[in-house]
Protein backbone atom coordinates (compact mmCIF):
# COMPACT_ATOMS: atom_id res chain seq x y z
CA UNK A 1 0.00 0.00 0.00
CA UNK A 2 2.81 2.41 0.87
CA UNK A 3 4.26 1.95 -2.59
CA UNK A 4 1.02 3.08 -4.19
CA UNK A 5 1.05 6.29 -2.17
CA UNK A 6 4.64 7.03 -3.06
CA UNK A 7 3.82 6.59 -6.72
CA UNK A 8 0.73 8.78 -6.40
CA UNK A 9 2.63 11.55 -4.63
CA UNK A 10 5.29 11.36 -7.31
CA UNK A 11 2.72 11.62 -10.09
CA UNK A 12 0.86 14.54 -8.53
CA UNK A 13 3.99 16.50 -7.90
CA UNK A 14 4.54 16.54 -11.65
CA UNK A 15 0.96 17.07 -12.73
CA UNK A 16 1.06 20.76 -11.82
CA UNK A 17 4.10 21.45 -13.99
CA UNK A 18 3.35 22.06 -17.62
CA UNK A 19 6.24 22.34 -19.99
CA UNK A 20 6.17 25.52 -22.00
CA UNK A 21 5.98 24.52 -25.61
CA UNK A 22 8.50 25.94 -28.00
CA UNK A 23 7.90 25.96 -31.72
CA UNK A 24 10.27 23.40 -33.18
CA UNK A 25 12.63 24.90 -35.77
CA UNK A 26 11.97 21.94 -38.06
CA UNK A 27 8.25 22.66 -38.24
CA UNK A 28 7.46 24.34 -41.57
CA UNK A 29 6.06 27.75 -40.67
CA UNK A 30 5.85 30.95 -42.72
CA UNK A 31 8.14 30.38 -45.72
CA UNK A 32 10.44 32.89 -47.35
CA UNK A 33 10.58 33.31 -51.12
CA UNK A 34 13.36 31.10 -52.48
CA UNK A 35 15.24 32.50 -55.47
CA UNK A 36 17.84 30.53 -57.44
CA UNK A 37 20.35 32.26 -59.69
CA UNK A 38 21.14 30.93 -63.16
CA UNK A 39 23.58 31.84 -65.88
CA UNK A 40 21.91 33.65 -68.79
CA UNK A 41 24.65 32.40 -71.14
CA UNK A 42 24.17 28.84 -70.05
CA UNK A 43 20.62 28.63 -68.66
CA UNK A 44 20.95 25.14 -67.19
CA UNK A 45 23.82 26.18 -64.91
CA UNK A 46 23.43 27.93 -61.61
CA UNK A 47 25.41 31.10 -61.15
CA UNK A 48 26.82 32.49 -57.94
CA UNK A 49 26.35 36.07 -56.78
CA UNK A 50 29.52 37.23 -55.03
CA UNK A 51 27.77 39.85 -52.91
CA UNK A 52 24.11 40.73 -53.13
CA UNK A 53 22.26 43.07 -50.84
CA UNK A 54 18.50 43.02 -50.81
CA UNK A 55 16.86 45.91 -49.07
CA UNK A 56 13.15 46.39 -48.53
CA UNK A 57 11.62 49.46 -50.11
CA UNK A 58 11.84 52.31 -47.63
CA UNK A 59 13.91 50.33 -45.13
CA UNK A 60 17.43 51.24 -44.09
CA UNK A 61 18.79 47.82 -43.18
CA UNK A 62 19.19 45.14 -45.81
CA UNK A 63 20.01 41.45 -45.95
CA UNK A 64 23.43 40.63 -47.38
CA UNK A 65 24.23 37.39 -49.21
CA UNK A 66 27.81 36.39 -49.92
CA UNK A 67 28.74 33.82 -52.59
CA UNK A 68 25.29 32.28 -52.97
CA UNK A 69 23.33 30.82 -55.82
CA UNK A 70 20.20 30.49 -53.65
CA UNK A 71 18.71 33.22 -51.48
CA UNK A 72 15.77 33.43 -49.08
CA UNK A 73 13.66 36.57 -49.31
CA UNK A 74 11.24 37.40 -46.46
CA UNK A 75 7.88 38.63 -47.65
CA UNK A 76 5.74 41.18 -45.86
CA UNK A 77 3.03 39.38 -43.85
CA UNK A 78 0.88 42.48 -43.61
CA UNK A 79 0.58 43.37 -47.31
CA UNK A 80 -0.08 41.66 -50.64
CA UNK A 81 3.11 43.04 -52.17
CA UNK A 82 6.75 43.24 -51.16
CA UNK A 83 9.27 45.46 -52.88
CA UNK A 84 13.05 45.06 -52.70
CA UNK A 85 16.11 46.65 -54.22
CA UNK A 86 18.51 43.93 -55.38
CA UNK A 87 22.01 45.44 -55.26
CA UNK A 88 24.58 43.28 -57.05
CA UNK A 89 28.25 43.57 -56.06
CA UNK A 90 27.25 45.60 -53.03
CA UNK A 91 30.27 47.22 -51.37
CA UNK A 92 32.49 46.87 -54.41
CA UNK A 93 35.27 49.47 -54.51
CA UNK A 94 34.45 50.23 -58.14
CA UNK A 95 31.02 51.91 -58.17
CA UNK A 96 30.66 51.13 -61.86
CA UNK A 97 30.27 47.45 -61.02
CA UNK A 98 27.38 48.00 -58.58
CA UNK A 99 24.03 47.39 -60.24
CA UNK A 100 20.61 47.86 -58.69
CA UNK A 101 17.32 46.41 -59.83
CA UNK A 102 14.03 46.93 -58.09
CA UNK A 103 11.76 43.92 -57.81
CA UNK A 104 8.21 43.81 -56.51
CA UNK A 105 6.46 40.54 -55.70
CA UNK A 106 2.68 40.40 -55.78
CA UNK A 107 0.77 37.66 -54.00
CA UNK A 108 -2.20 36.70 -51.89
CA UNK A 109 -1.90 35.42 -48.35
CA UNK A 110 -3.64 32.69 -46.40
CA UNK A 111 -3.40 31.96 -42.69
CA UNK A 112 -2.98 28.30 -41.73
CA UNK A 113 -3.05 26.78 -38.26
CA UNK A 114 0.17 24.98 -37.35
CA UNK A 115 0.18 23.98 -33.68
CA UNK A 116 -0.18 25.22 -30.12
CA UNK A 117 3.46 26.22 -29.93
CA UNK A 118 3.78 27.75 -33.40
CA UNK A 119 0.33 29.30 -33.69
CA UNK A 120 -0.46 30.18 -37.28
CA UNK A 121 1.64 30.55 -40.40
CA UNK A 122 1.14 32.56 -43.56
CA UNK A 123 1.35 30.88 -46.94
CA UNK A 124 1.72 32.97 -50.08
CA UNK A 125 0.33 32.46 -53.57
CA UNK A 126 2.13 34.47 -56.21
CA UNK A 127 -0.34 36.11 -58.58
CA UNK A 128 -1.13 34.19 -61.70
CA UNK A 129 0.47 35.46 -64.91
CA UNK A 130 -2.65 34.71 -66.92
CA UNK A 131 -5.02 36.59 -64.66
CA UNK A 132 -5.10 40.07 -66.15
CA UNK A 133 -7.16 41.53 -63.29
CA UNK A 134 -4.30 41.18 -60.78
CA UNK A 135 -0.76 42.55 -60.97
CA UNK A 136 1.96 40.30 -62.36
CA UNK A 137 3.66 37.94 -59.89
CA UNK A 138 6.72 40.20 -60.12
CA UNK A 139 7.33 43.68 -61.47
CA UNK A 140 10.83 44.79 -62.41
CA UNK A 141 11.83 48.44 -61.90
CA UNK A 142 8.18 49.50 -61.55
CA UNK A 143 7.41 48.67 -65.20
CA UNK A 144 5.12 45.67 -65.72
CA UNK A 145 6.26 45.32 -69.33
CA UNK A 146 9.94 44.93 -68.46
CA UNK A 147 11.46 41.45 -68.56
CA UNK A 148 15.06 42.47 -67.90
CA UNK A 149 16.73 45.15 -65.82
CA UNK A 150 20.17 46.55 -65.06
CA UNK A 151 21.75 43.25 -64.12
CA UNK A 152 18.78 40.84 -64.08
CA UNK A 153 18.39 39.43 -67.58
CA UNK A 154 15.37 37.21 -67.09
CA UNK A 155 12.98 36.02 -64.36
CA UNK A 156 10.79 32.93 -64.31
CA UNK A 157 8.30 31.73 -61.73
CA UNK A 158 8.91 28.06 -60.90
CA UNK A 159 6.26 27.63 -58.24
CA UNK A 160 3.38 29.98 -57.59
CA UNK A 161 2.25 28.65 -54.22
CA UNK A 162 4.89 29.08 -51.53
CA UNK A 163 4.54 26.24 -49.05
CA UNK A 164 8.00 25.68 -47.67
CA UNK A 165 11.61 26.63 -48.13
CA UNK A 166 12.74 23.35 -49.68
CA UNK A 167 11.49 24.40 -53.09
CA UNK A 168 12.57 27.00 -55.64
CA UNK A 169 9.93 29.61 -56.30
CA UNK A 170 11.68 31.98 -58.68
CA UNK A 171 14.69 31.74 -60.98
CA UNK A 172 16.71 34.83 -61.85
CA UNK A 173 19.04 34.69 -64.83
CA UNK A 174 21.96 37.10 -65.07
Amino acid sequence: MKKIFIVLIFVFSFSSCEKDDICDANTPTTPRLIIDFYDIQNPSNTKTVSTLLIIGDGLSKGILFNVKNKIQVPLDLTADATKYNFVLNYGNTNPALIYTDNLQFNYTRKTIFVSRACGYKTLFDLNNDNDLTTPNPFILNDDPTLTYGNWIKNITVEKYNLENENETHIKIYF
Partner: protein
Amino acid sequence: MRRTSKYIFSICLVVLSLTTHSQTKKTDTTVTKTNRYGLRIGIDLFKLSRSFYEKDYKGLEIVGDYRLSKKYYLAGELGNENKTVNDDQLNFTTKGTYFKVGFDYNVYDNWLDMENKIYIGMRYGVSSFSQTLNSYKIYNSHPYFEDTPIIISGEKYNGLSAQWLEVVVGINAKVFNNFYVGFSFRMNNLISNKKPDNFDNLYIPGFNRTYDGNFGAGFNYTVSYFIPIYKKKIEVTPVKKEMKKK
Protein backbone atom coordinates in the same frame (compact mmCIF):
# COMPACT_ATOMS: atom_id res chain seq x y z
CA MET B 1 4.59 24.48 -6.28
CA ARG B 2 1.84 25.74 -4.00
CA ARG B 3 -0.58 23.44 -5.72
CA THR B 4 1.78 20.49 -5.30
CA SER B 5 2.08 21.03 -1.59
CA LYS B 6 -1.71 21.18 -1.37
CA TYR B 7 -1.89 17.79 -3.08
CA ILE B 8 0.61 16.26 -0.72
CA PHE B 9 -1.18 17.68 2.27
CA SER B 10 -4.49 16.27 1.15
CA ILE B 11 -2.96 12.91 0.39
CA CYS B 12 -1.48 12.79 3.89
CA LEU B 13 -4.85 13.69 5.33
CA VAL B 14 -6.58 10.84 3.56
CA VAL B 15 -3.80 8.38 4.40
CA LEU B 16 -4.00 9.40 8.02
CA SER B 17 -7.72 8.86 8.21
CA LEU B 18 -7.29 5.39 6.74
CA THR B 19 -4.52 4.27 9.07
CA THR B 20 -6.22 5.50 12.22
CA HIS B 21 -9.30 3.55 11.24
CA SER B 22 -7.42 0.33 10.67
CA GLN B 23 -5.75 0.47 14.04
CA THR B 24 -8.79 1.03 16.19
CA LYS B 25 -10.70 -2.13 15.31
CA LYS B 26 -9.30 -5.39 16.63
CA THR B 27 -11.21 -8.47 17.58
CA ASP B 28 -10.35 -12.13 17.77
CA THR B 29 -13.62 -13.90 17.39
CA THR B 30 -16.04 -14.30 14.54
CA VAL B 31 -17.90 -11.10 13.86
CA THR B 32 -20.62 -9.85 11.64
CA LYS B 33 -19.65 -7.35 8.99
CA THR B 34 -22.23 -4.97 7.65
CA ASN B 35 -21.87 -3.80 4.11
CA ARG B 36 -23.85 -0.75 3.25
CA TYR B 37 -25.01 -0.17 -0.27
CA GLY B 38 -26.08 3.14 -1.67
CA LEU B 39 -25.40 6.21 -3.67
CA ARG B 40 -22.51 8.57 -3.03
CA ILE B 41 -22.79 12.07 -4.47
CA GLY B 42 -20.03 14.62 -4.33
CA ILE B 43 -18.37 17.64 -5.79
CA ASP B 44 -14.89 18.25 -7.12
CA LEU B 45 -13.27 20.83 -4.84
CA PHE B 46 -10.30 21.19 -7.13
CA LYS B 47 -12.38 22.63 -9.98
CA LEU B 48 -14.51 24.65 -7.58
CA SER B 49 -11.53 26.27 -5.87
CA ARG B 50 -9.75 26.91 -9.15
CA SER B 51 -12.81 28.87 -10.26
CA PHE B 52 -12.11 31.29 -7.42
CA TYR B 53 -8.37 31.73 -7.61
CA GLU B 54 -7.84 31.44 -11.37
CA LYS B 55 -9.52 34.23 -13.28
CA ASP B 56 -9.41 32.42 -16.62
CA TYR B 57 -11.18 29.32 -15.34
CA LYS B 58 -14.72 28.40 -14.34
CA GLY B 59 -15.55 24.79 -13.70
CA LEU B 60 -17.85 22.52 -11.78
CA GLU B 61 -17.92 18.75 -11.51
CA ILE B 62 -20.45 16.54 -9.76
CA VAL B 63 -19.24 13.03 -9.02
CA GLY B 64 -21.22 9.99 -8.03
CA ASP B 65 -20.93 6.28 -7.49
CA TYR B 66 -23.36 3.51 -6.74
CA ARG B 67 -22.23 0.30 -5.08
CA LEU B 68 -23.20 -2.66 -7.22
CA SER B 69 -21.45 -5.49 -5.38
CA LYS B 70 -18.82 -5.97 -2.71
CA LYS B 71 -16.07 -4.67 -4.94
CA TYR B 72 -17.71 -2.99 -7.91
CA TYR B 73 -19.17 0.49 -8.16
CA LEU B 74 -20.95 2.17 -11.01
CA ALA B 75 -19.31 5.57 -11.22
CA GLY B 76 -19.57 8.77 -13.18
CA GLU B 77 -18.87 12.47 -13.39
CA LEU B 78 -20.84 15.33 -14.87
CA GLY B 79 -19.20 18.67 -15.37
CA ASN B 80 -18.95 21.99 -17.11
CA GLU B 81 -15.86 24.02 -17.86
CA ASN B 82 -15.02 27.42 -19.27
CA LYS B 83 -11.32 27.93 -19.71
CA THR B 84 -9.26 30.59 -21.42
CA VAL B 85 -5.76 29.58 -22.39
CA ASN B 86 -3.19 32.29 -23.02
CA ASP B 87 -0.18 30.86 -24.81
CA ASP B 88 2.61 32.71 -26.58
CA GLN B 89 1.08 32.28 -30.00
CA LEU B 90 -2.59 31.76 -29.19
CA ASN B 91 -5.34 32.90 -26.87
CA PHE B 92 -8.53 30.88 -26.93
CA THR B 93 -11.56 30.04 -24.79
CA THR B 94 -13.10 26.59 -24.53
CA LYS B 95 -16.62 26.17 -23.13
CA GLY B 96 -18.52 22.97 -22.76
CA THR B 97 -20.13 20.16 -20.85
CA TYR B 98 -18.93 16.62 -20.30
CA PHE B 99 -20.15 13.35 -18.93
CA LYS B 100 -18.17 10.31 -17.86
CA VAL B 101 -19.51 6.91 -16.95
CA GLY B 102 -17.80 3.68 -15.96
CA PHE B 103 -16.94 1.52 -12.99
CA ASP B 104 -14.60 1.43 -10.02
CA TYR B 105 -13.10 -1.70 -8.54
CA ASN B 106 -12.25 -1.44 -4.84
CA VAL B 107 -8.91 -3.09 -4.13
CA TYR B 108 -8.98 -2.15 -0.45
CA ASP B 109 -10.03 -4.84 2.01
CA ASN B 110 -12.26 -3.03 4.46
CA TRP B 111 -12.14 -4.29 7.99
CA LEU B 112 -15.50 -4.58 9.74
CA ASP B 113 -17.70 -1.58 9.06
CA MET B 114 -15.02 0.49 7.41
CA GLU B 115 -16.12 1.92 4.11
CA ASN B 116 -12.99 3.15 2.44
CA LYS B 117 -12.25 2.76 -1.17
CA ILE B 118 -8.93 2.52 -2.92
CA TYR B 119 -9.85 1.83 -6.46
CA ILE B 120 -8.94 1.45 -10.02
CA GLY B 121 -11.56 2.10 -12.62
CA MET B 122 -12.42 2.99 -16.15
CA ARG B 123 -14.54 5.70 -17.68
CA TYR B 124 -15.96 6.51 -21.04
CA GLY B 125 -16.04 10.27 -21.45
CA VAL B 126 -17.89 12.45 -23.89
CA SER B 127 -17.74 16.20 -24.24
CA SER B 128 -19.62 18.76 -26.27
CA PHE B 129 -18.04 22.18 -26.50
CA SER B 130 -17.14 25.29 -28.45
CA GLN B 131 -13.83 27.01 -29.03
CA THR B 132 -13.33 30.73 -29.50
CA LEU B 133 -10.08 31.87 -30.97
CA ASN B 134 -9.58 35.22 -29.24
CA SER B 135 -6.28 36.20 -30.79
CA TYR B 136 -3.26 34.69 -32.46
CA LYS B 137 0.17 35.41 -33.83
CA ILE B 138 1.69 34.32 -37.08
CA TYR B 139 4.91 32.47 -36.55
CA ASN B 140 7.73 33.99 -38.52
CA SER B 141 11.16 32.56 -37.87
CA HIS B 142 12.84 35.21 -40.04
CA PRO B 143 11.20 38.54 -39.29
CA TYR B 144 12.46 41.35 -41.51
CA PHE B 145 9.53 43.69 -41.84
CA GLU B 146 7.89 45.08 -38.71
CA ASP B 147 7.21 42.38 -36.15
CA THR B 148 4.00 40.53 -36.76
CA PRO B 149 1.33 41.89 -34.44
CA ILE B 150 -1.18 39.98 -32.35
CA ILE B 151 -4.19 39.45 -34.57
CA ILE B 152 -7.57 39.73 -32.85
CA SER B 153 -9.89 37.08 -34.22
CA GLY B 154 -12.92 36.27 -32.08
CA GLU B 155 -13.86 33.45 -34.43
CA LYS B 156 -16.11 30.92 -32.71
CA TYR B 157 -16.19 27.24 -33.59
CA ASN B 158 -19.40 25.58 -32.40
CA GLY B 159 -20.59 22.01 -32.33
CA LEU B 160 -17.28 20.37 -31.44
CA SER B 161 -17.13 17.07 -29.61
CA ALA B 162 -14.74 14.46 -28.33
CA GLN B 163 -14.87 11.00 -26.81
CA TRP B 164 -12.24 9.30 -24.74
CA LEU B 165 -11.42 6.50 -22.31
CA GLU B 166 -9.96 7.05 -18.87
CA VAL B 167 -8.09 4.81 -16.51
CA VAL B 168 -8.73 5.99 -12.96
CA VAL B 169 -6.74 5.39 -9.80
CA GLY B 170 -8.22 6.88 -6.68
CA ILE B 171 -9.05 6.80 -3.06
CA ASN B 172 -12.16 7.63 -1.11
CA ALA B 173 -12.08 7.71 2.67
CA LYS B 174 -14.80 8.21 5.24
CA VAL B 175 -14.05 11.19 7.43
CA PHE B 176 -17.16 11.27 9.61
CA ASN B 177 -20.72 10.01 9.45
CA ASN B 178 -21.56 9.70 5.79
CA PHE B 179 -19.01 12.22 4.55
CA TYR B 180 -16.14 11.13 2.40
CA VAL B 181 -13.10 12.81 0.92
CA GLY B 182 -11.22 11.43 -2.01
CA PHE B 183 -9.04 12.12 -4.92
CA SER B 184 -8.38 10.44 -8.20
CA PHE B 185 -5.83 10.58 -10.92
CA ARG B 186 -6.78 9.84 -14.52
CA MET B 187 -4.96 8.92 -17.69
CA ASN B 188 -7.03 9.73 -20.76
CA ASN B 189 -6.89 8.49 -24.29
CA LEU B 190 -8.90 10.16 -27.05
CA ILE B 191 -10.94 7.90 -29.29
CA SER B 192 -12.63 10.58 -31.35
CA ASN B 193 -12.11 14.28 -31.70
CA LYS B 194 -14.11 16.57 -33.97
CA LYS B 195 -11.73 19.43 -34.70
CA PRO B 196 -12.57 22.82 -36.18
CA ASP B 197 -11.27 23.85 -39.59
CA ASN B 198 -7.93 25.62 -39.43
CA PHE B 199 -7.72 25.28 -35.64
CA ASP B 200 -7.39 22.48 -33.11
CA ASN B 201 -9.03 21.30 -29.89
CA LEU B 202 -6.19 22.30 -27.62
CA TYR B 203 -8.38 21.97 -24.55
CA ILE B 204 -11.38 19.69 -24.14
CA PRO B 205 -13.72 20.06 -21.14
CA GLY B 206 -13.35 16.99 -18.94
CA PHE B 207 -10.36 15.75 -20.87
CA ASN B 208 -8.20 18.80 -20.17
CA ARG B 209 -5.22 19.88 -22.23
CA THR B 210 -4.50 17.89 -25.35
CA TYR B 211 -1.05 16.97 -26.53
CA ASP B 212 0.30 15.96 -29.92
CA GLY B 213 -1.04 12.42 -29.60
CA ASN B 214 -4.23 11.16 -27.99
CA PHE B 215 -2.93 11.29 -24.46
CA GLY B 216 -4.30 13.38 -21.61
CA ALA B 217 -4.39 13.45 -17.83
CA GLY B 218 -6.74 14.61 -15.13
CA PHE B 219 -7.18 14.95 -11.42
CA ASN B 220 -9.99 15.59 -8.99
CA TYR B 221 -10.34 16.10 -5.27
CA THR B 222 -13.78 15.37 -3.99
CA VAL B 223 -16.00 15.72 -0.98
CA SER B 224 -19.05 13.50 -1.08
CA TYR B 225 -22.03 12.36 0.92
CA PHE B 226 -23.19 8.77 1.09
CA ILE B 227 -26.91 8.03 0.91
CA PRO B 228 -27.43 4.49 2.27
CA ILE B 229 -30.07 2.46 0.50
CA TYR B 230 -29.79 -1.08 1.89
CA LYS B 231 -27.47 -3.25 4.02
CA LYS B 232 -25.93 -6.70 3.70
CA LYS B 233 -24.56 -8.67 6.65
CA ILE B 234 -21.61 -11.00 6.18
CA GLU B 235 -19.98 -13.41 8.72
CA VAL B 236 -16.23 -13.08 8.83
CA THR B 237 -13.57 -15.14 10.64
CA PRO B 238 -10.68 -12.78 10.96
CA VAL B 239 -7.66 -14.98 11.58
CA LYS B 240 -5.11 -14.48 8.87
CA LYS B 241 -6.61 -11.28 7.58
CA GLU B 242 -5.87 -9.45 10.77
CA MET B 243 -2.22 -10.40 10.73
CA LYS B 244 -1.80 -9.20 7.23
CA LYS B 245 -3.61 -5.93 7.82
CA LYS B 246 -1.76 -5.18 11.08
